[in-house]
């Protein structure tokens, strides 16, 4: 199933249509009738309290889970009809987790190469690209360090470099500053700003913090599994940034 991929506001990257997710045979409703549009190059924050369903929404947008009903369209294509979701995630998406989830036995440079195993890049090119990405997040000096020898802020930078490994179309970040103090959290958000500004990358950030959400162009608010405010898309903001 495909659909139109642009409207008067620009090119639609992700659109959800009547998205619902329930658990335990319908006893728990995590998301209910969520209709949402995210444009290419947009920096969006999805905000809500704990248990509001925002992480469930991110999982559905990231093809990590299937909706109970409804559809997610990515570049006009239905995820439910996509033949290879692993490949889709590897090629189109970059994930940043609250707890970083770096492999503890690998150095920063090796961690960044992990997603590239699916891209069939030759080893030398993989290493060179991982170095470039670590340089881009200011971690060149730490490339041989294990995660245990990095500060939490540095670990998140490495995780962001890993998320960028396969040149994703969109970066999905789940509470990326949740485990960071305000200074390092701010540095990570500066990095997101830079990625958005310099690479025109689409960013979808899940947060419960107003200060984090305010860095985005648009704030989508979610409460009890329902979209309560989809925010206003302003292409001018995109152009200004």
């Amino acid at each position, binding site marked *: 199933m495909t659909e139109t991929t642009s409207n008067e506001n620009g090119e639609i990257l992700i659109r959800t249509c009547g998205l619902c997710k329930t658990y335990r045979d319908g006893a728990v409703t995590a998301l209910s009738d969520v209709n949402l549009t995210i444009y290419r190059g947009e920096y969006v924050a999805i905000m809500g309290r704990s248990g509001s369903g925002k992480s469930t929404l991110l999982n559905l947008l990231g093809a990590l889970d299937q909706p109970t009903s409804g559809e997610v369209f990515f570049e006009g294509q239905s995820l439910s009809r996509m033949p290879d979701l692993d490949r889709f995630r*590897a090629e189109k998406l970059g994930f940043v*987790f609250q707890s970083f989830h770096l*492999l503890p*036995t690998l150095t920063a440079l*090796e961690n960044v190469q*992990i*997603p590239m195993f699916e891209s069939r890049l030759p*080893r030398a090119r993989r*290493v060179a690209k991982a170095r470039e990405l670590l340089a881009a997040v200011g971690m060149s000096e730490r490339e041989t360090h294990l995660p245990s020898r990095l500060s939490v802020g540095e670990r998140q930078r490495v995780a962001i470099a890993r998320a960028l490994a396969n040149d994703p179309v969109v970066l999905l970040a789940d509470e990326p500053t949740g485990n960071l103090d305000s200074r390092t959290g701010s540095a990570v958000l500066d990095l997101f700003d830079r990625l958005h500004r310099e690479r025109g990358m689409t960013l979808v950030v899940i947060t419960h913090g107003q200060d984090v959400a305010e860095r985005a162009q648009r704030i989508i608010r979610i409460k009890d599994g329902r979209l309560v405010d989809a925010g206003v898309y302003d292409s001018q903001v995109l152009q200004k940034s």
Partner: protein
Amino acid sequence: MRFSTLIWHNLLRRRLRSALTSVGVGVAIMAVAALLAISRGFEESMAGAYESRGIDLVVVRAGVAERLTSSLDQRLADRLRKLPFVEDVVLELRDQASLGDSALVGTPLLGWEVNSQLYESLTFTSGRPLKKSDRHAVLLGEALAERLGKQVGDTVELLLQEFRVVGIFTSRNRFENLTAVVQLQELQELMDRPGQVTSFQLKVRDSAHKSLDVEAVRAAIESLTDRQGRKLGLLAQPTRRFVTSTLQIRIAHAMAWVTSAIALVIGAIGILNTMIMSVLERTREIGVLRAIGWRKSRVVRMILSESLALSVAGAVVGVVSAATLVKVLSSTHRAGAFLTQEIPAAVVGRAMLMSIVLGLVGGLYPALRAAALRPTEALRHD
């Protein structure tokens, strides 16, 4: 970073556990390699002795389970000698008895004719072969002589009769190093088996088409009949096939395989346990790998590669240990008489192949389980 580097890092994460798992596999492979080498050594030793004597066919009574119970009329030798292509027929009577008051119950006794070609595979370390004029004379295999503490000139008691040791020998057939040889007629009298032999060993004349000639002789022997036209019930087998069909060799092989199978099952359970633990501990990591786009097949490859690495490392340890064990055992008096000193390349190859099967079997379930993890659930795992 190579994919193998990731495997290596994962194995080093729990060094002691990985090492112990490999050692467990190593013990299993050592048992497999050592037992296979020993049983193969038996077979090679026995076959080598026949081949060194130039024996092409061994004739026994058809249908007997154990060749000691084979009983043939020695006058048949004349009929066999008259068959086309047959160069010579050697007679042998085998039986067993306890030697005097020693603890050696069931010592194999061989009855050979004085001028038998069977002596050609013996090397005398002291004394001489049997002579026609000898009465109650015996030759002892070196290992048997050592166990009995006998030398040339001493006497041994065979079924309550005194026999004088006139020679001590080593044989290409390691089994024969634990045997005693007496004249055919004396053994027939001793065992109350007059005119009987257990086997005829035939040499076929050399020719350009000898294998065809051997087959023709074999067929002719098996179709021999008595005066009433009834088949004599003889079984003629090429030496190699005869050796592999003997009860001792079949038991040795069966024991080796059964013990190996048990060891391998234990080894596979060890790997299975380690890999299940490893997958359980890394559930969240595997969830991350799946989330960032790793296919299920790559996760399977990762876990299987880890279990294969453990089992192949174990196989290397096992083969080296088995080689050392066999060497040490073969240098001892008790086992050295019938043990090979080296592990054949084919056994090493088989052990390595088994380790690969072991790794795949032990790693398959954990690998499939890891690949089946749903990223969202795995990421929530504590």
